[in-house]
């Protein structure tokens, strides 16, 4: 199949992915590694041997005249300016929240910022204040230390061990398309594939999507591979077709990590160590297709201040288009890059001022109620300070000077160092939506269905466990990545990130409407967001099924004497003081027999707060933090109640009586829910080889109440290993020598091994939750970030040299030690 075939059949990518799914003949490719053709083989061995002939063979493609790479405008640019009030709690003079971000135009493919004017439009005003920050940093007060540094992070591969693949079968007679696809975003694939076919000349009556348990670290979220699988299936001559990258293909075609270049200027008052002003120019290389580059770059920009409070800040960010491979939402999503640079700079400033590096952080840490760099007050209690205090008291930190002296004396040719990094990071995307259905069988077995996908983080285990809060036991059976929800019809339209309040108000009149349908598994969203809908569904079953069943068993008067909040689950029995403990199985049987609620399906939406609504369940007005609810009654329900059940699985779809969606203004403020993490590292640099031996590391996390502590610790361990890889080992050339040439594999892209991660000598602690009701918080992505700066800062402690470009490889260390 070539571009000509696709053009003939009007097959093209969904709009998100841009043009030229396959490169047309005679056209300059937009980027290295761009797909040219798909070859389908009907016999495996023939495919295998043909592939060997084709791989690494540049002569397979006939090239025309050299045109040079395309020159294109950046994918996007914006500037985030804030001039605060007298204190962090006072009204801002200018900020994103109060006025808005500054947008750019492009000239000769470079961003052009608006002309400044104090009394002009928002953009002009923003530039007025940006320029005032520039001027002040150029002519600072005498007591300020002003430091300007350039930082760079690398292009990389997320290295999900399962390479991208897609399996499809098109049944032309029935016009059915079957897809078996590992994806983090099954809903996106379902909608995208349907849209593709709808626009094509090829008929589609039914789409069967089977999402798989998979892994991606962002590379299988909004990934083009499933759509190549669709077209392979369409041209499979009625056969099922498997499209599967090998590792060379995956390096060549998988979504990559954005390369970042960052110029930071930071001003700190020398005497007090108080941060005064921060200015940054961030350029992220988005490569050949836009994908999420703009959003990711802006997250990087709005995260750059990390855990600190700056009275003034001006962060400009540009996501450029280039001939590099297309980039995706690689773990860390821009914040990994920008926060790492910040942590390197803060360490250097502490050194210059002669202040303990954690002390300096503590003097400037963002506290609860303070405004962030967008002028918004982050949600909830801010705990970065607690993480910093814990780190400052840790023996790895307190004894470092003496240990360095002793180690260096005992190990000639090796340099010992200790470093620290800390960050605070949002989890979730600002438009999270999920569905969950919880159902009780007659014998008390619990079944959970969820729209979230298992990507190796343990979401399936944690969601099963989450049921126990209301049902006394984890789910016995669960079905993840569910895309068909006949029992809970939800309609959606518009873009939840950009819609106007008026549009939202109008659309919300439809009792089936929600701003978004179902989120991908991404942005560490399972612990908080997935759990919320699971537990809301379980709560409805508890309150309107199990609890009335319990009251019925306990007998007359119980409803007045005991309340649902008095009850506790112990050993899978519902217990209230002075009453007979009731096993779940008995309660379930009773709920079924009485026709009470034995199943609930919910849809939830969160834009930094939950949508909420009223419903009438079995004659009772119910308020829930969901925007859609269906219930199933037990088998003993009377005919009238059964008649309300209209769905294939006998659910009653409830029309919400009132709904309150989070305001669209929340899109602009980037407030978010935060998780704070800090990591200490101890390492030794070998002067002869330049190699870094990681001796120990310790991570401190605050993440609310843990659903499954083993999963939390596993995420910390895995994420820190990724951070180690990015700090010391992993990188890809961007262009002609890079993975687009099809020759990259694990022989030269070093993924950390056991010996690289201090496998026996790493520890972690999770700070106690603020209360027993504090929800679990997303932490998987965030846990891998601070170790990067901690390692590079430790190398500075060890060698006296501050590296500002990642990764810090042995050859680069040898250069500075020479």
């Amino acid at each position, binding site marked *: 199949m070539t571009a000509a075939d696709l053009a003939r059949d009007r097959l093209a990518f969904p709009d998100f992915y841009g043009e030229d799914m396959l490169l047309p003949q005679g056209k300059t490719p937009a980027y290295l590694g761009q797909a040219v053709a798909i070859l389908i083989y009907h016999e*495996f*061995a*023939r495919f*295998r*041997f043909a592939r060997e002939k084709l791989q690494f063979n540049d002569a397979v493609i006939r090239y025309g005249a050299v045109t040079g790479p395309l020159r294109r405008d950046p994918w996007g640019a914006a500037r985030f300016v804030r001039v605060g009030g007298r204190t962090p709690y006072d009204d801002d003079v200018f900020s994103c929240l109060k006025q808005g971000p500054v947008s750019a135009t492009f000239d000769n493919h470079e961003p052009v910022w608006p002309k400044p004017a104090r009394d002009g439009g928002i953009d002009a005003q923003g530039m007025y204040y940006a320029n005032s920050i520039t001027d002040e940093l150029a002519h600072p007060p005498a007591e300020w230390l002003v430091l300007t540094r350039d930082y760079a992070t690398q292009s990389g591969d997320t*290295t*999900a*061990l*399962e*390479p991208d693949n897609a399996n499809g079968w098109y049944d032309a007679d029935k016009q059915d398309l079957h897809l078996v696809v590992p994806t983090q975003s099954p809903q996106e694939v379902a909608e995208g594939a349907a849209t593709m076919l709808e626009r094509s000349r090829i008929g589609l009556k039914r789409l069967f999507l089977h999402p798989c*348990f*998979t*892994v991606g*670290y962002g590379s299988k979220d909004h990934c083009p591979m499933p759509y190549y699988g669709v077209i392979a299936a369409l041209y499979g001559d009625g056969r099922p077709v498997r499209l599967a990258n*090998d*590792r*060379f293909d995956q390096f060549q075609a998988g979504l990559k990590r954005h390369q970042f270049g960052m110029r930071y200027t930071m001003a700190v008052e020398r005497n007090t160590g108080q941060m005064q002003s921060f200015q940054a120019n961030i350029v992220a290389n988005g490569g050949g297709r836009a994908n999420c580059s703009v959003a990711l770059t802006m997250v990087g920009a709005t995260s750059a201040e990390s855990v600190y409070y700056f009275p003034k800040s001006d962060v400009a960010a540009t996501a450029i288009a280039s001939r590099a491979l297309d980039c995706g939402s690689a773990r860390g999503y821009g914040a990994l890059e920008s926060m790492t640079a910040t942590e390197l700079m803060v360490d250097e400033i502490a050194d210059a001022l002669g202040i303990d590096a954690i002390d300096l952080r503590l003097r400037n840490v963002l506290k609860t109620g303070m405004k962030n760099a967008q002028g918004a007050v982050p949600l909830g209690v801010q705990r970065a300070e607690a993480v910093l205090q814990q780190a400052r008291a840790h023996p790895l930190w307190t004894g470092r000077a003496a240990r360095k002296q002793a180690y260096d004396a005992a190990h000639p040719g090796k340099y010992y160092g200790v470093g620290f990094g800390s960050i605070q990071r949002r989890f979730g995307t600002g438009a999270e939506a999920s569905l969950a259905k919880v159902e009780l069988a007659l014998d008390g077995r619990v079944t959970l269905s969820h729209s979230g996908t298992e*990507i*190796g*983080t*343990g979401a399936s285990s944690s969601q099963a466990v989450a049921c126990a809060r209301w049902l006394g036991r984890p789910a016995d059976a669960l079905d993840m990545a569910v895309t068909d929800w006949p029992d809970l019809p939800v309609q959606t339209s518009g873009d939840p990130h950009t819609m106007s309040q008026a549009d939202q108000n109008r659309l919300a009149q439809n009792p089936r409407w929600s701003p978004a349908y179902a989120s991908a598994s991404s942005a560490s969203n399972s612990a908080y967001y997935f759990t919320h809908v699971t537990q809301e569904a379980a709560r409805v079953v508890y309150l309107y099924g199990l609890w009335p069943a319990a009251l019925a068993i306990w007998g007359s008067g119980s409803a007045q004497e005991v309340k649902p909040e008095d009850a506790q689950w112990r050993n899978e029995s519902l217990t209230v003081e002075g009453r007979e403990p009731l096993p779940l199985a008995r309660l379930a049987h009773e709920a079924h027999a009485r026709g009470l609620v034995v199943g609930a399906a919910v849809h939830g939406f969160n834009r930094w707060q939950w949508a909420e609504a009223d419903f009438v369940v079995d004659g009772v007005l119910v308020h829930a933090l969901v925007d859609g609810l269906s219930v199933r009654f037990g088998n003993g329900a009377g005919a009238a109640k059964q008649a309300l059940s209209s769905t294939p699985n006998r659910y009653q779809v409830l029309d919400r009586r009132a709904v309150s969606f989070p305001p669209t203004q929340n899109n602009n403020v980037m407030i978010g829910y935060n998780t704070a993490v800090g990591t200490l590292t101890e390492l030794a640099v070998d002067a002869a080889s330049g190699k870094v031996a990681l001796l120990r590391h310790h991570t401190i996390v605050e993440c609310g109440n843990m659903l*499954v502590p*083993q*999963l939390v*610790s*596993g995420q910390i*361990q*895995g*994420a*820190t*290993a*990724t951070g180690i890889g990015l700090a010391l080992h992993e990188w890809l050339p961007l262009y002609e020598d890079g993975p687009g040439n099809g020759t990259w*594999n*694990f*022989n030269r892209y070093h*993924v*950390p*091994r*056991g*010996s690289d*991660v201090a*496998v*026996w000598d*790493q520890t972690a602690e999770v700070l106690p939750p603020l209360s027993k009701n504090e929800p679990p918080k997303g932490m998987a992505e965030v846990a891998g970030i601070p170790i990067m700066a901690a390692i590079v800062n430790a190398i500075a402690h060890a060698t006296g040299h501050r590296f500002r470009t990642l990764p810090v490889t042995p050859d680069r260390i040898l250069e500075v030690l020479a």
Partner: protein
Amino acid sequence: MTIPIRPLTVTINGRQHGPMDVPEGLMMIDVLHEMLGLTGSRLGCGIGICHACVVIWDRDDQTSEEVRTCITGAGFFDGKRIRTIEGTAQTDERGEIVALSPVQQAFLDQFSFQCGYCTPGFVNAATVLVERLKRAPVPRGEVQATVAAALETHICRCTGYVRYYQAVRDVILTTPGLTRDGT
């Protein structure tokens, strides 16, 4: 073009397969996946680096070792006995799993894996190690180093290795006969 064929007879998980005609030059992982329906061995890199594809080769001298099937031609296995991940757990006559191996059980109990793609390789590596230690126990003080050496070549991207290593260490320390006193 005609693809030359070679006969292959191999015993996998105690069951003889073949003689069967195998295209000459096909790697063993392709035979497992495409001809025998044994898809548990994973293709990670295809060049022998990541070890997700290893199977256990049982030698006639009662020793066993890992072999990377992504870079080992099927012909190498002619007449040999191997074990794949599909044969690790105990099954009943209907093929239903009745008991996991100690290594598998430890990996589950300790939440050792996440996405699971590398897990068959780790199970096989740990199994080979446990069997080696049955023949030649190591001092208890060397267990961690022994585990680290045995698993070092296996790549895992999700876990940071800690829970794999700890699980294997614990299996070794709690299984009689795998360790000895001394250093």
